[in-house]
């Protein structure tokens, strides 16, 4: 053995300890300040949103006061009162439950199908050549255009709505996964192969986790498409005795009930934003874990 007893141990340990102390100093400092940072962050996240809501309400009230289409255009006060009343009834909650259930099932199917297609297409070169551009093409297709097709195929059923949700959302989800696989850093691939990861284990331990941020981004975009498809579907495919947000909105249109229509729109907007926020939280959590956030 050429290398024997290098350096004296205490001196080495001492230098190491010093170096590590300097290295971790900044992190220790951050940990100490964490609670106050959390409060500051919560406030920083809250006030712009609150301000945005105040601005929207103010502009809305101004238009109302100005007297534009006064007869049919309700002010924020009347609309929010209407929303409050509807929230006391079972009908709105029933509708929300129906719509949310469809969203969960449709989006869940889209994630499963999109991920499966993405995984296959990213691994099999001929399949990618054949289907890759088709997926991107499908992504640009306005999903409402699928409804005549879906209604002829499945009739006025929930299946028709779910079918269009999947067609709307799955391409984005597949593309997200494909992008994630494509952008797996070559150096990590090299390291993975060197340590003996092959085929399935390479995929499972390296490529899939490396794709996670792009996959989540794809899911977020897919959700937006799914929610739009669902709303279009509920307005077009009206199933008797199955109140949904789309059905309520459609009824309001028939009865020219502007207050209720606006109230329902607010509900739809709120639900969409809520789910979008969930994805943002997931995205941020991943970035923080990976150290991809800029130090604030």
């Amino acid at each position, binding site marked *: 053995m050429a290398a024997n*007893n290098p*350096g004296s141990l205490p001196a080495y340990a001492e230098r190491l300890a010093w170096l590590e102390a300097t290295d971790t100093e900044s992190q220790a400092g951050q940990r100490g300040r964490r609670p106050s940072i959390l409060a500051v962050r919560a406030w920083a996240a809250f006030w712009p949103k609150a301000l945005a809501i105040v601005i929207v309400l103010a502009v809305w009230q101004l238009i109302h006061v100005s007297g534009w289409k006064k007869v049919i255009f309700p002010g924020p006060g009347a609309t929010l009162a209407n929303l409050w009343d509807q929230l006391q009834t079972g009908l709105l909650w029933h509708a929300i439950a129906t719509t949310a259930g469809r969203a969960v099932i449709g989006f869940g199917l889209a994630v499963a199908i999109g991920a499966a297609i993405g995984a296959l297409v990213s691994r099999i070169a001929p399949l990618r050549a054949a289907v890759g551009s088709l997926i991107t093409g499908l992504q640009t297709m306005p999903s409402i255009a699928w409804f005549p097709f879906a209604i002829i195929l499945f009739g006025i059923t929930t299946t028709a709505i779910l079918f269009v949700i999947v067609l709307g959302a799955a391409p984005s989800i597949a593309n997200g996964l494909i992008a994630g696989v494509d952008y797996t850093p070559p150096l990590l691939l090299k390291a993975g192969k*060197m340590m003996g990861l092959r085929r399935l284990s390479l995929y499972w331990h390296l490529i899939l986790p490396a794709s996670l941020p792009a996959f989540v981004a794809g899911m977020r975009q897919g959700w937006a498409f799914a929610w739009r498809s669902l709303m279009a579907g509920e307005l077009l495919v009206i199933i008797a005795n199955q109140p949904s947000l789309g059905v309520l909105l459609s009824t309001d249109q028939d009865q020219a009930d502007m207050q209720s229509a606006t109230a329902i729109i607010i509900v739809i907007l709120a639900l969409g934003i809520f789910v979008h926020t969930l994805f943002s939280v997931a995205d941020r959590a991943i970035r923080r874990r990976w150290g991809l956030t800029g130090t604030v």
Partner: protein
Amino acid sequence: MSPVTVTDRPASAVGGSVQLSTVTKVFGRGSSAVRALDQISLEVPQGEFTCLIGASGCGKSTLLSLIAGLEQPTSGAVSVSGRVALMFQEPALFPWLTAAGNVEVALRAHGIGRAERRQRTAELIEAVHLGGFGGKRPHELSGGMRQRVALARALAQDADVLLMDEPFGALDAMTRDLLHDELDRVRAGRQLTIVFVTHNVREAVRLGDRVVVLSSRPGRVVDEFAVPIEHPRRIDSAPVAELAARITDRLREEMSGHGR
């Protein structure tokens, strides 16, 4: 600090030598072809620490890729006995895993069971002096600490041959100095054959049993120096500096000869 615990491979395990015979590597074809390596012959016996040194473009990294089996030679033969691990200039850690997780994934790739994996991961983390940092993610560690995790991961592969591609090139002098000691220690308990690529002549003399000088474009072996300096060595000691100066002169000669 506890003494270094080293899981040694059984003495019966053979392997750990590298042999290149008249290896040529050409990238591209026709007029745009680049001859990265030209008729390189090199033998690294088991247990030797060989440093490859040369100006940029001498195909040092290509040479390591050939030994690692990541690329095939255009002509000539590469033969390696034993398992090979490769360390890069960047730590190339998986950002979604902790330091310990990064070591463990290498053990998992070798099909080692959970209980043994846990134990060996802890040993390896300890062996590179990262006890207490196993739960940190790569971005929470300093550059030197990350490279030590990469070293632990390379050791986890239970390799006979360790290839190192300028592994300390991106570190500051103080940290690099520490990692040189680290490498000496880690090596002390194992039958590890090391091929270490660097452009830092003093580093090569500080670490290696032998320094091989490569020319650039195309890469050829132009000279080699034994390093008969006793361990422990210091990078700023007189014998190291003296030999480094001689090797630097030889490198300069080679480069100016090239500049005609």
